[in-house]
């Protein structure tokens, strides 16, 4: 059970994400953005939060062109798991592994606070540890989390049960209060809130831990 956490210049949640994967039992490697291949046997790729390339041009735009992202796209095409958090979600949208885009928060301010989320589907390896409709508390910390997609994409996300999380009281103006979405095969999740920041009581919450545990369960039984 192997996780690979990507590291871009400007990533700052990479170590937290590795701690969360390791707490769930993953053998976890850090992978530099200039590497062209993932470690042998990687089951899940974590694309961490932060400010890759200083958010130059657009958040995630330069990281999306890095050599490692070609390997991540190939991994996803083979049915591999990918978890993109915050800047990682922006990177996944810029690489078109997930639809839509993340724009400047409607209130223009950086929001950094504990946020209530509603789990919208338990039908994925990421969310199987929750109940659909369950409310959880997960921190948000972003300036560009305002999810935007065209009406056809939003309709498809709803019809295919691919909205993983919605905000309970939107912090950023995201369309349809969307906080996290799944790929069509349900193996790529992008979300703005930070589940890796609530995996230990010492962090002030543990509502993120079921995500990492259920991923581990899915990979053990696979």
């Amino acid at each position, binding site marked *: 059970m192997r996780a690979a956490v990507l590291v871009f210049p400007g990533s700052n949640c990479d170590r937290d994400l590795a701690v969360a994967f390791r707490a769930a039992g993953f053998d976890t490697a850090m992978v530099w953005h200039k590497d062209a291949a993932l470690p042998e046997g990687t089951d899940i790729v974590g694309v961490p939060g932060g400010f890759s390339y200083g958010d130059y041009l657009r958040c995630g735009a330069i990281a999306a062109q890095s050599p490692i992202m070609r390997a991540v796209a190939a991994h996803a095409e083979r049915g591999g798991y990918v978890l993109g958090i915050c800047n990682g979600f922006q990177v996944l*949208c810029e690489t078109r592994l997930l639809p839509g885009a993340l724009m*400047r*928060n*409607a209130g223009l301010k950086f929001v950094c606070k504990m946020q209530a989320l509603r789990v919208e589907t338990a039908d994925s390896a990421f969310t199987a540890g929750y109940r659909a409709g369950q409310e959880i508390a997960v921190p948000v910390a972003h300036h560009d989390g305002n999810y935007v997609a065209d009406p056809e994409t939003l309709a498809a996300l709803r019809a295919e049960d691919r909205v993983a999380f919605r905000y309970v009281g939107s912090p950023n103006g995201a369309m349809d209060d969307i906080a996290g979405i799944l790929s069509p095969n349900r193996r790529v999740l992008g979300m703005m809130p930070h589940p890796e920041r609530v995996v230990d009581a010492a962090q002030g919450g543990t509502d993120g831990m079921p995500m990492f545990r259920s991923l581990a369960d899915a990979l053990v039984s696979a």
Partner: protein
Amino acid sequence: MKATVTVMLKQGVLDPQGEAVKSALRTLGFAGVEGVRQGKVIELDLAAGTTEAEVTAMCEKLLANTVIESYRVEIG
């Protein structure tokens, strides 16, 4: 040769920064400002012979996110 690429949010996409600039201009007393859209200008220095089609490819692949942005290319 030079190319100038102008990237703007598509019409219909809310531009929170443009809205903030508009309200700041009004606060300054410029009551006639009815709308502001903020974008970016990217100037490219290009080797002779670079085609407009190549600049368009640059826009599609990197310079603009066509999910939310439109772009305009001017050569020269």
